[in-house]
């Protein structure tokens, strides 16, 4: 699981935020305050220009006080009536077509999705979820952006606003109605895509009889058979059978099969583990450098992507994860082994080939962060870029060769445990990011996880609807749509947008990059000093500060998406779901307020 941004606990996220940022709520209030002030100023300037300073001030004052009063006069019945109207309208506008498109996509998906990828589930899940997201956002966009403008065009709005309907109710009713329609669509899509993924990836194999070889244990006793399955869905599995002819087709292509004896044949059952919802508990990662000095990050091996940093082999360089709240409750015991289950992802970087065909060895060691008591090292061979699910045994020897208990002796009184990983081979490197080691809690239900992912799509949809409805209070249909589309597009590329605004992207601001484009200068070349350059950069400075302002309200659609969790088989953390829902609420509230004032100050009959 690649997690470039750490997911903070909900309360921390809401109030104080992570390091170097502020909490979501204060941030929301700041933005609201800023926007409110800006809106007030703009409103005053416009009405003062129209009606003179005194009357303009009066109008602004009355608009605001009316707004506050009308908020209290909001009637759920009216909102609901308008929501129902929006739903009927959506239905009449053939929103069902979207479902048909969705089913067509599913039917033809197999043209473009091949099952010969190493992890077909990842591909299938990310495909259907991404398709759903785009489709639903598209529908949300079309519904929301064109509805109000159509009312204005047909003048049906006349009969609405001459009733005691508050402008806020019109915005909320629309938002609610389209959200409900979208929710129904999403529900149908969610169920069908779940079925689609499971049905598409389900398959069985035959046991390849010719490949079976008898296995004997050290004493020469017959203990079972080894072999492989037939080639189905572009892959095979290694097979291990016991003396009864039952066993398991080992994990390959992200799943495994059980093999049972039916009559005199060993039959391979359907695929298992295609969809998983691993529940990780992440710790905090720090490093020791090659001299054993604590560092925040390991070294770079020159990769452009700085997600992981590396420890060099056969030195004191160590990756140290500190986990909180360790208790025997986390213990896993299946009778054979007992200990703390962890998942570990190691990215191997070799500076020489080493022994071709053999992995790089490393070591795992647990340590009590308070007493400094350390266990003896547990050697392992790195599985590059795959999840190594292993168990740290409960009974461990210390460096002093005495026997210790993991939970009693290595966990500090405040529940902390350190797990240290080193690379043992000189000239080879292990790369880690914080989420690369986690405590494995029991898997959550994939169905619930699916729901959570759909909830995140729902959140995106609601935000788009809110933006669309708000934009359409002021703009004509196509313009409102374009406005919303640019919000979505910029939202999907928010990090880049912010990068350009903050000046951290190569190639400069919009004018400078345009200049580079037409003069065919690459993005690294320094521009010649001079008036033109200063002018360009000056204008860009204005643009960039505008962009930076805008970035404050731009939803980060890429970060809202939880498709990657489902695709990689991880449970979406509850904190993330709550954060997204809160964010959604913030957008709806904020946009409703903006929409209210836009609609309220608009002359309906123009």
């Amino acid at each position: 699981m690649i997690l470039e941004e750490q997911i903070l606990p909900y309360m921390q996220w809401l109030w104080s935020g992570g390091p170097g940022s502020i909490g979501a709520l204060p941030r929301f209030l700041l933005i609201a305050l800023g926007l409110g002030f800006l809106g007030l100023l703009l409103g005053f300037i416009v009405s003062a220009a129209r009606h003179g300073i005194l009357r303009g001030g009066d109008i602004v004052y009355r608009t605001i006080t009316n707004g506050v009063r009308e908020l209290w006069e909001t009637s759920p019945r009216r909102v609901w009536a308008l929501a129902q109207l929006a739903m009927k309208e959506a239905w009449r506008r053939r929103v069902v077509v979207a479902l048909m498109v969705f089913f067509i996509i599913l039917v033809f998906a197999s043209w473009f999705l091949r099952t010969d990828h190493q992890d077909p589930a990842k591909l299938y899940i990310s495909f259907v979820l991404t398709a759903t997201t785009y489709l639903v956002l598209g529908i949300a966009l079309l519904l929301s952006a064109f509805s109000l403008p159509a009312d204005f065009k047909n003048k049906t709005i006349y009969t609405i606003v001459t009733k005691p309907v508050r402008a806020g109710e019109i915005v909320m009713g629309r938002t609610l109605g389209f959200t409900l329609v979208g929710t129904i669509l999403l529900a149908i899509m969610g169920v069908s895509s779940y079925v689609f993924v499971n049905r598409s990836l389900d398959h069985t194999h035959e046991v390849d009889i010719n490949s079976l070889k008898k296995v004997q244990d050290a004493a020469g006793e017959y203990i079972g058979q080894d072999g492989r399955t037939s080639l189905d869905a572009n892959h095979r599995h290694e097979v291990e059978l016991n003396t009864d002819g039952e066993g398991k087709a080992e994990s390959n292509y992200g799943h495994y099969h059980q093999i049972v004896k039916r009559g005199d044949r060993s039959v391979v059952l359907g695929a298992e583990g295609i969809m998983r919802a691993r529940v990780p508990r992440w710790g905090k990662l720090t490093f020791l450098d090659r001299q054993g000095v604590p560092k925040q990050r390991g070294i770079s091996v020159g990769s452009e992507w700085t997600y992981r940093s590396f420890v060099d082999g056969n030195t004191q360089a160590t990756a140290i994860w500190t986990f909180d709240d360790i208790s025997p409750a986390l213990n896993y015991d299946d009778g054979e082994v007992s200990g703390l289950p962890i998942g570990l992802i190691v990215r191997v970087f070799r500076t020489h080939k080493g022994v071709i065909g053999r992995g790089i060895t490393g070591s795992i060691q647990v340590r009590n962060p308070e007493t400094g008591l350390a266990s003896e090292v547990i050697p392992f061979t790195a599985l590059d870029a795959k999840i190594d699910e292993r168990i740290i045994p409960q009974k461990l020897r210390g460096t002093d060769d005495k026997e210790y208990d993991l939970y009693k002796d290595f966990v500090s009184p405040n529940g902390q445990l350190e797990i240290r990983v080193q690379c043992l081979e000189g000239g080879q490197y292990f790369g880690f990011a914080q989420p690369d080691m986690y405590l494995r809690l029991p898997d959550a239900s994939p169905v619930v996880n699916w729901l959570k992912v759909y909830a995140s799509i729902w959140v995106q949809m609601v935000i788009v609807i809110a933006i669309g409805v708000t934009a359409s209070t002021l703009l004509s249909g196509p313009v409102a749509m374009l406005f919303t589309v640019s919000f979505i597009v910029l939202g999907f590329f928010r990090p880049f947008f912010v990068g350009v605004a903050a000046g951290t992207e190569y190639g400069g601001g919009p004018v400078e990059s345009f200049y580079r484009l037409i003069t065919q200068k690459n993005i690294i070349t320094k521009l010649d000093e001079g008036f033109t350059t200063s002018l360009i950069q000056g204008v860009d400075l204005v643009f960039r500060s505008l962009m930076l302002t805008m970035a404050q309200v731009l939803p980060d659609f890429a970060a809202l998406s939880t498709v990657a969790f489902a695709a990689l088989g991880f449970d979406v953390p509850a904190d993330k779901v709550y954060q997204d829902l809160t964010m959604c609420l913030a957008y709806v509230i904020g946009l409703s307020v903006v929409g209210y004032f836009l609609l309220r100050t608009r002359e309906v009959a123009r």
Partner: protein
Amino acid sequence: MSDDIVIQTRALGKVYRDFWGRQKVRALKPLDLEIQRGEVLGLLGPNGSGKTTTIKLILGLLFPTEGEALVFGKRATDVSKNERIGYLPEESYLYRFLNAEETLDFYGRLFDMSAETRKQRVDELIKMVGLDRARKRQLQEYSKGMTRRIGLAQALINNPELILLDEPTSGLDPIGTREMKDMILRLKEEGKTVVMCSHLLADVQDVCDRIAILHQGELKELGRVDTLLTVADVTQIRARNLTADCQNEIRQVIARHHGELMEMDNPSTTLEELFLSIVRDSEARPGRRANVEQTTSA
């Protein structure tokens, strides 16, 4: 301000501007108008004279450039005044995908009416405007007259005290027109205030207490219909069953008093009257060609 004044405009004016704020059209020159409770006021004038603009300003659909309009003592931009207002727009701008019941129910809910009240009221109104048989049909299948009627029904859903009608008879056949006029008179009887605008003079004449004549955004004339239309130096005599002799005698009497006889003949009825009597006749005896050759006043 007295409770009896329902609408009051003070120097109400509207200027349409273009995008750059330049003055384009002066749609309404400062207008002072007071409308009393229970009154039927007709706004008269040719197309583009500012009638509709006035109504939209009163409703708050437009914002005044100068002056203000007060409805029930509240500013026109105040939404809560709408509780007591019914409005029938120039064309019935309704949701064509709803049927009559749904439409009325929807507007009823916008008045925050409870379900029972709504049901009762919807039923009442549908019967009143005579759409009982078409209550489940979508509005897009309605004829112009039916649309107009459902439009009127939605305007009355809240049993309003003030009713604003924009060209209430436009596009209606003579029967529809008459029914509309009867409806207005009935509303008047119920003590409601009605403001209507029209360019069909006959309609206004029949139902209005007062009329205001607008031309090029300016109020030209305002007063009671009877006063306005009385021609002081002309006397009209209408009599029944006069013989030719009697008529001659009357001529002589007039001549003797140095009066000028302007007209004495058998009056022709209005086409409207004729049409209505034909329809009544055909309804009474369906399938026969109407036989109304000579009309006598009944």
